[in-house]
């Protein structure tokens, strides 16, 4: 009798170590462009709820491949809307958790010429190279092409286009002044004072929706669900907006 009680008590004790009640942990895959806001949001999240969000940053495409091969992420913050949808379609994520957590803003940026009136600058074409992210690989690239077509400058500018394989690389081309102008994400210009910029009117391109989704692996994790809820909340939204994203 006493032995049974002892074993039961031991079991409860061990169980409590395995799943500490209250303070949880969740593994979040975060698109590289959302790195800085994600860190701030996670810190605030920890402060407010006591849960810890363990963040991993990288390319959305790579994350998608890993997730479909069993990587232990529980929440996925993508740079686009296709990958989360594909995750849901593939049975790796919960459909009703899908939502747009940020909308990317496309910006024309230059450290060499004045692009404050971006439309005029593009039409004048007084530059040798224009940098964009590879449309095949990044939504910002697709958006850049859309915007240029909408402005009717795409055909004239096409010979001058150079592609970075990611938005980060497109940024690098402009930052090192190898390309005089380039289409980058507004969030990348957070804290950057050099050069001139032109926020591309959102009417010229389809919105760059960055979607988040709860993965099957995190379906029963309170911390995962709490994180996504926090992301939708007012404090997180304020941070997101401050970093240069639009909100739904």
């Amino acid at each position, binding site marked *: 009798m006493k032995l049974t009680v002892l074993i039961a008590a031991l079991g409860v004790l061990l169980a409590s170590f395995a799943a500490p009640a209250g303070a949880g942990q969740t593994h979040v895959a975060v698109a590289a462009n959302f790195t800085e806001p994600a860190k701030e949001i996670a810190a605030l999240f920890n402060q407010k709820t006591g849960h810890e969000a363990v963040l991993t940053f990288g390319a959305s495409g790579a994350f998608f491949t890993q997730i479909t091969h069993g990587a232990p992420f529980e929440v996925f913050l993508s740079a686009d809307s296709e990958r989360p949808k594909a995750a849901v379609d593939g049975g790796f994520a919960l459909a009703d958790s899908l939502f747009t957590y940020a909308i990317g803003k496309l910006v024309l940026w230059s450290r060499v010429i004045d692009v404050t009136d971006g439309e005029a600058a593009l039409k004048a074409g007084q530059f040798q190279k224009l940098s964009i992210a590879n449309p095949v*690989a990044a939504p910002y690239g697709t958006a850049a092409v859309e915007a240029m077509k909408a402005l009717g400058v795409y055909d004239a500018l096409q010979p001058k286009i150079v*592609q970075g394989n990611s938005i980060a*690389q497109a940024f690098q*081309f402009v930052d090192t*002044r*190898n390309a005089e102008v380039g289409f980058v994400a507004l969030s990348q210009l957070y804290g950057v004072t050099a050069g001139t910029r032109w926020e591309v009117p959102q009417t010229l391109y389809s919105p760059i929706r960055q979607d988040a989704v709860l993965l099957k692996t995190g379906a029963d994790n309170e911390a995962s669900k709490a994180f996504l809820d926090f992301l939708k909340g007012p404090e997180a939204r304020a941070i997101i907006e401050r970093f240069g994203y639009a909100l739904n």
Partner: protein
Amino acid sequence: MLGLPSDIWVPIQLTIELAAITTLSLLVVATPLAWWLARSRAAWKEGVAAIVSLPIVLPPTVLGFYLLILLGPDGPGGAIASLWGARTLAFTFTGLVIGSIVSSMPFVVQPIRNAFAAIGDRPLEVAATLRASPRRAFWTVALPLASPGLLTGAVLGFAHTVGEFGVVLMIGGNIPGRTRVMSTAIFDFVETMRWRDANMLAGGMVVFAFAVILSMILLEKRIARARA
């Protein structure tokens, strides 16, 4: 060409051109460097050797970044490009050649240096006693004796350039017909899920590289046997 659509055979052609020009340029640049490394008694020569080997250790992103700066308007590349009215050597085939030369250099210098070192002093002393000036001794004795090493260096340099992805990605700009080589083209095909094209290109790449390397190895063995 060969009935293949242009978005497949143009990258192939570009890749072969890039690898060939890079390899030849490397032989010209690496050979004197390897000779110096093999023969010099300067205290700082291993420091130079370490610098030459850096591209093996550095991630392509780091290498690509420094190359971007070097090739760009703030670096020597920009100065050179301004000679013909351009601002930068990035996004040009020339820029790719330079980038490939830097990243493949250690693979070419090392085998050539070893080959020169393996010759030792004796053949060159013999040449000197037979009225050969140091220059003549280099061309008629050292170089022929080291030729298997040069061949190895050429093979490795060529293969490495064909497979080079990181650096090309960083400084190329993926311009069709100019800097979209096989590696970046395959990347695109994978991203757009054109698996068949990706496989064709990748498979062709493997076969070609294999053929080149195998024939060079056999040639090298032939030379060694003839001299045994």
